[in-house]
C-alpha cells in the first residue's frame, strides 16, 4: 500500500508491506524493517532496523504530527489514488498567486489583461501587521484579480493569476 508523505516542500513516496507478521517500509530503493509499540496515549517507541526512538504522535484528517528527537514535524498524508481522482495535479503552466496567510489588500497594482514582467508588483497586501508585495513570478499576462483594496482574504485565497504560458 502506497502513501505520499509531504514534509515542508519535500515529498516522499513510501510503500508499506506486511510480511510474516512484520512491517517493512520501502523508501526510495531502501527497505526498512519497522515496528511501533504504543507505550502511552499518543506515545510510541518506533523501531527502525532494530534501533529505537521515542515519539509523540497526533493525527488529524490531513496531517500526522510527530515529536521526536526534540522537535515536532508535520507530515501531510496523501493517498496517491485520491490525488489522481481529485485532479489537483497538473494545472498547466498558469501561475496562481495564493495568499500565504490571512490578511487585507492594501492596493491593487495590476488589472486583467495587463502584460507584466517578472518582479512587477501586482498587489500590496498586509498580513500580521506587515505590508508585503505580491510580485509576478514570471513574465506574462494578468488573468484574474480577485480582490480590491480594503478587501480581506483567507489563507490560500487566490489573489492574482497569470494566464497560462503558450508553448
Amino acid at each position, binding site marked *: 500500500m502506497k502513501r505520499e508523505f509531504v514534509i515542508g516542500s519535500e515529498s516522499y513516496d513510501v510503500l508499506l508491506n506486511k510480511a510474516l507478521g512484520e512491517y517493512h517500509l520501502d523508501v526510495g530503493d531502501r527497505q*526498512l524493517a519497522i515496528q511501533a509499540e504504543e507505550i502511552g496515549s499518543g506515545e510510541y517507541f518506533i523501531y527502525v532496523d532494530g534501533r529505537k526512538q521515542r515519539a509523540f504522535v497526533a493525527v488529524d484528517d490531513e496531517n500526522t504530527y510527530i515529536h521526536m528527537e526534540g522537535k515536532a514535524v508535520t507530515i501531510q498524508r496523501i493517498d496517491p489514488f485520491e490525488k489522481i481522482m481529485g485532479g489537483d495535479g497538473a494545472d498547466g503552466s498558469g501561475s496562481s498567486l495564493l495568499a500565504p496567510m490571512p490578511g487585507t489588500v492594501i492596493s491593487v497594482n495590476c488589472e486583467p489583461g495587463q502584460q507584466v514582467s517578472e518582479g512587477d508588483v501586482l498587489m500590496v497586501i498586509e498580513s500580521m501587521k506587515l505590508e508585503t508585495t505580491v510580485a509576478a513570478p514570471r513574465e506574462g499576462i494578468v488573468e484574474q484579480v480577485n480582490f480590491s483594496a480594503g478587501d480581506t482574504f483567507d489563507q490560500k485565497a487566490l489573489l492574482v493569476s497569470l494566464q497560462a504560458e503558450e508553448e
Partner: protein
Amino acid sequence: MQKIKKVLIANRGEIALRILRTLKAAGIPGVVMYHRVDRGAPAVREAEETYLIEGETPVAAYLDIENILAACRTTGANAVHPGYGFLAENAPFAKALAEADVIFIGPTADVIELMGDKVSARKFVEARGFPVAPSAIEEDDPATFVERVAKVGFPVLIKPAAGGGGKGMRVVYDGANLAEEVERGRREGERYFADGRLFAERFIENPRHIEVQVFGDQHGNYVHFWERECSIQRRFQKIIEETPSPALSPEQRQEICTAAVGIAEAVGYQGAGTVEFIYAPTGEFYFLEMNTRLQVEHPVTEMVTGYDLVYEQLRVAAGEALNYTQADITQTGHSIECRICAEDADADFAPAIGKLLKVREPVGPGIRVDSGVIEGQDVTTAFDPMLSKLIVYARDRQQCITRTQQALRDYVLLGVTTNTAYLDKILSHSDFISGDVHTGFLAEQADVLKQNLSQDTLDFLLSAAALTDEQLCNAVAEIPELYAAMGHWRN
C-alpha cells in the same frame, strides 16, 4: 493591601493566568474576563469568577473600555490589572477607571500619556540630560520632515510616533526612496494607531536592545531590578530574553541601571515600568522608549531577583511603600526566556493555526512555563501568535543555555506548528553562546537557522507516520500474508 478588594484581569492568554496565580497566592479574589473564543483557555478554567465580554472582533472585545467598566460594576472589582498589550498603556483607559473609582494597577494616566508617546517621551528624557540618538520629529515641522530625516544620517529608522511592538517600522538605507518610505510609514501608522505622525532616528548598526526594570511607589521611592537583554528579535519583536546581559561589564550595568532609575524618578513613575535602551557595539547607550506596564519578559527578572513583580505592582497600587531598598535587590544566577509562538520559522514566520492535539510541558530544575494554552484548544489568528513562555533559571549562563535547550526539546506541542526547534537552533549558535548578538542577528543568520532533517531522522519520521496511519495499516493487513511475502521476495 486592604485597599484592593477584588481585581479584574483585563487580559487573556498566559499573562491572565500569571496574574491570577499571584492573586490567588495573595488571597485576593480575581475575576477573569474573556471573549467566547477564549472560553477553553486555562485562565478561564482556573478563575473562581469569570465575566464574558463581547465585541465586533475578539480583539475589539478586549479593547472596549465600556466592557471593562461594566465588568467592574457587575463583579464588584475595585482594581484592574491590564497585563501587557490591549489597554495596558492607554491613558484614557486609566483616566476612565480613576473616574469610576477603580484602581488602575499601573502608572498614572499623565505618565502613560507622557511616556507612551515616543516623541514626547524622548523630548522629556533628552531635556533632563539622559542620552538619546540623533533624530527627527515630523510634527516639529512636517514640511521639512523628509529633508530633516536625510540629515539624521543613513541608515535611518522611521516609525510611527504612536507605535510600539515593531508595527509600521522601517529602516531606510539611502535617500533614493526616502519620500516613498515616509509615505508608507505614515499609512501604516494611520492604520494601526489611527495616527500617521512619524518619528525618525539614526539606525545604529548591529545594536543590542537592553532594558531595565524599574519600580516606583506613591511615596517617592524608586528602584531598578537590573537589566534584561532582548536582542534576539524577529521582525522587530523579541523572542528570546535573558538576564544578566552578556554584553555589560559591572560598571556599564551600573551606569545603564542608574540612568533608568533616574528617568523613572524624573517622571514620578508608579508601579512596574521598563526603560528600553539601544546599546551600540562601541558601548554607548541611548534611550529608546519607556514601556509603562509589566513586560512580557518580566519573569527572567523574577527568576534572578526572587521578587514577584505582579505582587509588587499590587502593593504599589494599594498605596503601600516599597519595603526594600536598592541594596536589597540582588541579581543571582542567570535566566533565559523563550517565547513559544504558533508560527513557521522556516516560512518567514507565517502564523500557524490549528487544534493543539497534544501538549506536554517540560519539567525539571529551574524550569517555569507561563502558558496560555492547553491540550484541545484551537489556535486562531484572532490574537498574537505567542502561546506560552518558557523561562529557565540556572547558576550561570552556560548551564542556563543547555537547560533551556533541553526544555525546548522536551516541550511537546502537536497540531500547530511552533518555533521550539527554531529557538533551540538559536541557542545552539556559537555567536549566541559567546553572547555576540545584535537585533539583526536572526535576519543575518536566517540560512544557518533553518531546520534540516538527517536521513536517519527522516527514516524514523516516515516509519512513525506510516505505522500510526490506521487506514494504511488496515489496508496492508488485508493482503494475505503468503502473497505479501511473495511480493516482498520479488523486491
